[in-house]
């Protein structure tokens, strides 16, 4: 087992566990129809968001996709506001307007996510332009799926980021599927994403086993160089696996497009028990208990929060 300082170990486990438990609770609650919004769960994929975000500073930025609970939580977004948002409450992180697919918590440097695949990638470039001008060495991490790499805007964005030497960390969460279609049916050469990115002069890294510490180390090693301007953008492809259905709370291994055999190795490699086993048993108990408290609190908060007033329909259309 790699030797990681106990603090990092505890922090990483707390984050992994918090995301997992939060989404398990979302899945549990969902059938009650209290969450009237599509939810795209990251259960099984937590290590990518955690590995990347744990290597960032508080004032660095990060933004996820419509499958964005994990990045929001890993970057330190307000959990009560997240659950309240799923409930469509006025206390939600976007005041009940955006829902699960449009999370944002600017106070914690979580930038907005979008329901249209690929749209947030160039948005991150714009933030990066501003960060570069600011000159404080801050960086931004922009998450995207394997499907998003097929959109033209991804390529346009790579070229511009490299051309302008922008401090962007592109993080591809490659779970091998776009909805129900495997990457092999969508990409002529499915395993060439990193190779392609490199042709833009962008350093590209690939982690195939979802090891949260490997992911963390790559980012932790690159970010200082990015802050000093030695590196412009970098690209990180992380193989991972979506355990639940594309959208919604359930499993869909009976649907026929994938099998539990495909799932099994990812369950065996689940980073949460792995990291748990690296902790002192007492530490683990403390963290698990804390996580339950935080999640329970977020549910209580969401439940008792009011819905937006009717007037909210028309507020914030224009600034």
């Amino acid at each position, binding site marked *: 087992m790699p030797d990681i300082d106990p603090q990092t170990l505890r922090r990483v486990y707390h984050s992994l566990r918090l995301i997992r438990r939060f989404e398990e609770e979302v899945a549990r609650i969902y059938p009650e*129809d209290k969450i*009237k*919004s*599509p*939810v795209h769960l990251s259960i099984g994929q937590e290590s990518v968001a955690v590995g990347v975000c744990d290597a960032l500073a508080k004032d660095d930025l990060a933004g996820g996709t419509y499958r964005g609970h994990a990045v929001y939580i890993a970057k330190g977004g307000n959990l009560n506001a997240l659950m309240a948002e799923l409930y*469509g*409450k*006025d206390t*939600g992180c976007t005041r*009940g*307007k*955006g*829902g*699960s*697919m*449009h999370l944002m918590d600017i106070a914690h440097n979580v930038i907005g996510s*979008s*329901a*249209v*695949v*690929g749209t947030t990638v160039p948005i991150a470039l714009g933030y990066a332009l501003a960060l570069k001008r600011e000159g404080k060495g801050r960086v931004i991490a922009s998450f995207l799926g394997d*499907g*998003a790499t*097929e*959109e*033209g805007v991804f390529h346009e964005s790579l070229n511009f980021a490299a051309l302008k030497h922008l401090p962007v960390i592109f993080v591809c969460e490659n779970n091998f599927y*776009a*909805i*129900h*279609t495997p990457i092999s*049916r*969508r*990409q002529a050469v499915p395993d060439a994403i990193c190779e392609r990115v490199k042709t833009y002069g962008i350093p590209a890294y690939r982690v195939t086993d979802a090891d949260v510490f490997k992911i963390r180390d790559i980012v932790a090693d690159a970010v200082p160089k990015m802050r000093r301007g030695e590196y412009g953008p970098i690209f990180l492809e992380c193989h991972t696996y979506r355990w639940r259905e594309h*959208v*919604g709370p359930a499993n869909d291994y009976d*649907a*026929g*497009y994938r099998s539990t055999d495909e799932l099994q190795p990812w369950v065996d490699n689940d980073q949460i028990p792995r990291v748990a086993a690296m902790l002192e048993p007492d530490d683990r108990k403390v963290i698990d208990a804390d996580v339950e408290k935080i999640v329970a609190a977020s549910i209580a908060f969401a439940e008792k929060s009011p*819905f*937006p007033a*009717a007037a*909210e*329909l*028309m507020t914030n*259309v224009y600034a």
Partner: protein
Amino acid sequence: MSTPKNGGPDAAGNTGGRVLRYVDALKEAVDQEMARDPRVFVMGLDVDDHKALQGSTRGLLQKYGPERIFTTPLAEDAMTGTAIGAAMAGLRPIHVHIRMDFLMLSMNQLVNMAAKAHYMYGGAIKVPLVVRSIIGKSWGQGPQHSQGLYSMFMHIPGLKVVAPSNAHDAKGCMLAAIRDDNPVMFVEHRLLYPTEAYVPEEMFELAPGKSRVVVPGGDVTLVGVSNMLVECLRARELLADVGVVAEVIDPIWLSPLDTDTIVKSVRKTRRLVVVDNGWTMCGAGSEIAARLAEVLGAEGISFQVERLGFAPTICPTSPTIEELFYPNPARIAQAAYRLAKPKAPEWTPDPDRAVLAYQKQFRGPF
């Protein structure tokens, strides 16, 4: 059955066929035309998976194989261009999008190529393309999964636009669209998918350019686009309670758009409420109201008109305010009532009868 389920066939004077759901009528039309014409094929994200685009392409893969129905990479711009090129080459593609919002990625190819190719190439080639897209509505679809952007396409000469409101028309319009030698934007609505109507087994075309008087009436004219036609029919029921008899008109095809039928109606009623399934500014309702103003103004006839549609804001996800974003039977009925009885006090229809026609039986998420 006497009263039409949804303004479809019966009102159209067509009582033949079986009761079919909108989604199945769509699929049947495509199926029958694929069997008849080997040039027809279907492409689009997820058209061939087990969910079959919310059921609308169910079984086509098994029947016609992967060369005639296939999913694509996430690449709306290039896939739209590919469909256009295939159409120029003599095939008859049907390009499908699960949300109309995603068409914003296809605008360059649709506006700058599909709409213009036949003309700018001097008539040498044609673009027999059908672009299917679904207006999303259910639970918390939110800002980017709920838009009805058809008026953008109505604005562009060279494109045709159709938005059938019931299963019967879905079949007839789809057959007409596939057989049309021009690019046709085929606008569907998520909430219409489970709605049923009598649909003939045999193939038939519901050709462009004729609006339909769904139910006659003399006091006020209601025009509804896509599933707003359904809400207009519910509004008509509500209005009947207070002695206002509405004539309900379905434009069916939005481009070319037949306004003569509407003009005829408003010459009689002098009152028009047009309900868009999108925003009203520069919407279909604006075009309809403008044409009526041109025609009736020339005749010296004054009439009252009110446009309804999405609230001039962004579609929120929270149910309490999302509900207010959309026109509903109660709001439509109230608008019509205000025109018909300007001096009467404000009237609020029975809330139980006023719920969104199809919203109530819907369960999310998609």
